[in-house]
């Protein structure tokens, strides 16, 4: 008989072969389907979170640029107070120019806004008083004087905008001159008043030199504010940080004795063997940590986390029937087949088997120290070490599959409150590697790989079941906010 016949023989037998699924099998399918949809939900959640973070990054970046503009726009008022309004005009112009909105600036000037006019008046007053305290009208007639002074003012007025002005000086000068002239002519009377009120004597009037000096000096108030903001929002230097994380990849490694029958022995026997296997399902945890920086290298932290993990435990009772058959040879003397040896074989028969899912929920309180060993502009690499106190708050025992209902031989498996036999309070020692990526001054994302194990075995009440000391391996991913 050739291959084809043998294949047909196997195919016919295989087609008629059926096995009865366990009673809870369909329920398990439903459970898996729900789990799958949950997992899809988690993926969607993380995609949204990632896109939100990216969006937030761009918004923060855009705000930074916006802040530079608004500082420049607001600067005139501040500087006006500091330096008697000598550079408000140029700064205002520069600010508008930076925004690419010169038209708006000109419109504003054409309507002769009082504040701008006042600022211009002050500016002109200062300029007018500079050479010889001759009066503004006289000064105005000498076209070259305002031009040169204005040019100096514009060039030195705002260090941030110097480059912009340098690029097109002639245009800048003419526009600035026009602005000054327009403002001055519209406020002729005001100018006189201002001169009379504000600059009564030659000594009171700031000289051109002082004007320029004052413009060149960085505003100490501004500098202080910027510095304090940077200090407040610096990833490395901030004292306190809050970390929210999700750990979707917690895997639990559980080393469990697995008795197996040695079938290599040639002894002919029948034996019943109980075998165990534990499949550890990936769990997840959600947590919050507060972290305090001691210096640029060391940080300490504490937190709280909710953790869920589960074990699929399979136990089956196997009957190994070991036997042997004779190996025949041909004896030429007797011209008969004789027994030359034995072939040992083993046929395992599963007497009963059970598969259960044990799901545990626990609250973890981690206390840890972090050492940063490498830092660059955006990245931080460090190691974590510490302890986690955990308490099992709830558990669930589900029978997934049973070839035969478990007998009384196993109290642990037949108990509905199986999870309560586990040691509920545990202290775990944890070690990990941490990577931090700075998104903005205040925000960063991080991933911390951790390995933790309880100091004592978590199962203590049932001596018949092998002791458990699971190893939790996970990756915490989350967002860190610096304060």
């Amino acid at each position: 008989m050739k291959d084809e016949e043998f294949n047909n023989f196997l195919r016919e037998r295989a087609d008629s072969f059926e096995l009865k699924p366990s009673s809870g099998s369909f329920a398990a399918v439903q459970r898996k389907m729900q789990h799958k949809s949950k997992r899809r939900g988690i993926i969607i959640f993380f995609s949204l979170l990632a896109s939100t973070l990216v969006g937030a990054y761009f918004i923060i970046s855009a705000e930074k640029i916006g802040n530079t503009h608004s500082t420049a726009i607001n600067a005139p008022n501040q500087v006006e107070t500091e330096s008697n309004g000598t550079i408000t005009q140029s700064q205002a112009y520069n600010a508008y120019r930076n925004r690419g909105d010169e038209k708006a600036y000109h419109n504003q000037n054409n309507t002769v806004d009082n504040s701008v006019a006042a600022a211009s008046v002050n500016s002109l007053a200062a300029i007018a008083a500079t050479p010889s305290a001759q009066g503004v009208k006289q000064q105005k007639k000498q076209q070259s004087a305002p031009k040169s002074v204005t040019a100096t003012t514009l060039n030195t007025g705002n260090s941030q905008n110097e480059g912009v002005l340098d690029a097109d000086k002639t245009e800048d000068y003419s526009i600035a001159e026009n602005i000054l002239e327009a403002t001055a002519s519209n406020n002729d009377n005001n100018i006189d008043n201002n001169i009379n009120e504000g600059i009564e004597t030659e000594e009171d009037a700031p000289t051109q030199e002082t004007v320029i000096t004052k413009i060149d000096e960085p505003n100490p108030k501004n500098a202080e504010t910027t510095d304090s903001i940077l200090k407040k929002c610096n990833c490395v230097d901030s004292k306190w940080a809050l970390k929210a994380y999700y750990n979707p990849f917690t895997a639990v490694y559980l080393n469990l004795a697995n008795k197996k029958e040695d079938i290599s022995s040639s002894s002919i026997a029948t034996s019943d063997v109980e075998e165990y296997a534990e499949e550890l399902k990936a769990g997840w945890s959600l947590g919050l940590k507060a972290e305090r920086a001691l210096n640029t290298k060391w940080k300490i932290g504490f937190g709280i986390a909710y953790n869920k993990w589960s074990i699929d435990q399979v136990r089956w009772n196997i009957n190994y029937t070991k036997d042997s058959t004779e190996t025949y040879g041909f004896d030429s003397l007797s011209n008969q087949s004789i027994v030359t040896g034995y072939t040992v074989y083993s046929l395992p028969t599963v007497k009963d088997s059970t598969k259960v899912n044990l799901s545990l929920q626990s609250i973890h309180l981690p206390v840890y120290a972090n050492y940063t060993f490498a830092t660059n502009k955006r990245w931080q690499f460090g190691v974590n070490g510490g302890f986690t106190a955990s308490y099992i708050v709830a558990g669930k025992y589900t029978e997934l599959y049973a070839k035969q209902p478990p007998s009384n031989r196993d109290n642990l498996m037949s108990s509905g409150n199986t999870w309560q036999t586990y040691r509920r309070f545990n202290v775990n020692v944890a070690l990990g590697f941490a990577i931090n990526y700075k998104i903005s001054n205040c925000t960063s994302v991080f991933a911390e790989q951790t390995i933790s194990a309880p100091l004592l075995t978590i199962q203590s009440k049932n001596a018949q079941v092998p002791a458990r000391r699971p190893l939790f391996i996970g990756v915490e991913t989350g967002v860190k906010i610096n304060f």
Partner: protein
Amino acid sequence: MITLQDEELIKGCLAGKRAAQNRLFDKYAPKMLGVCFRYAQTEHDAEDIMQDGFVKVFANLEKFRKEASLETWIKRVMINTALNFLKATQKLRMEADIDVVENNADIATSQYHDIDTQVLMQCIHSLPAGYRVVLNMFAIEGFSHKEIAEQLEITESTSRSQFSRAKILLQKKLDAITKYDKHYERRRVQ
């Protein structure tokens, strides 16, 4: 190709009706568990594979084109799930054979006709994973060695040699059982 009952079951499942899913499961689960058992290492692995397979069946039922029977389609899903399971759990290890074992010896299947189907399946089940999978795919499912090689990411010659070795080993097991039965019967008669 598709029976009216299957058509109704498919409609119900697509509408998300749990009762229809349950009926479809009850109808095909025993046969599919038998298929999974041939591929799996243990009985609970088979149950797991079958459950995962049905999750895929329910999730992808709208992709069923009705070109073949529903049973054939579900069976194909189960086989793919089983192969993925074996690959993922690294239970499917095949050593590339340098020497291709050719076994053209005739097998007198008539002597095995008395063997119970359950025992025959147990014998197939007890073969090493690589042998078992190739034997199932080639002899029972009717895949060619080329198709097996593509699916399992092995060479065609490896597939051939795995099949030959599987056949030899299975033959030995079946012979041992036949002899054991005869021996037992002889003793009982004596």
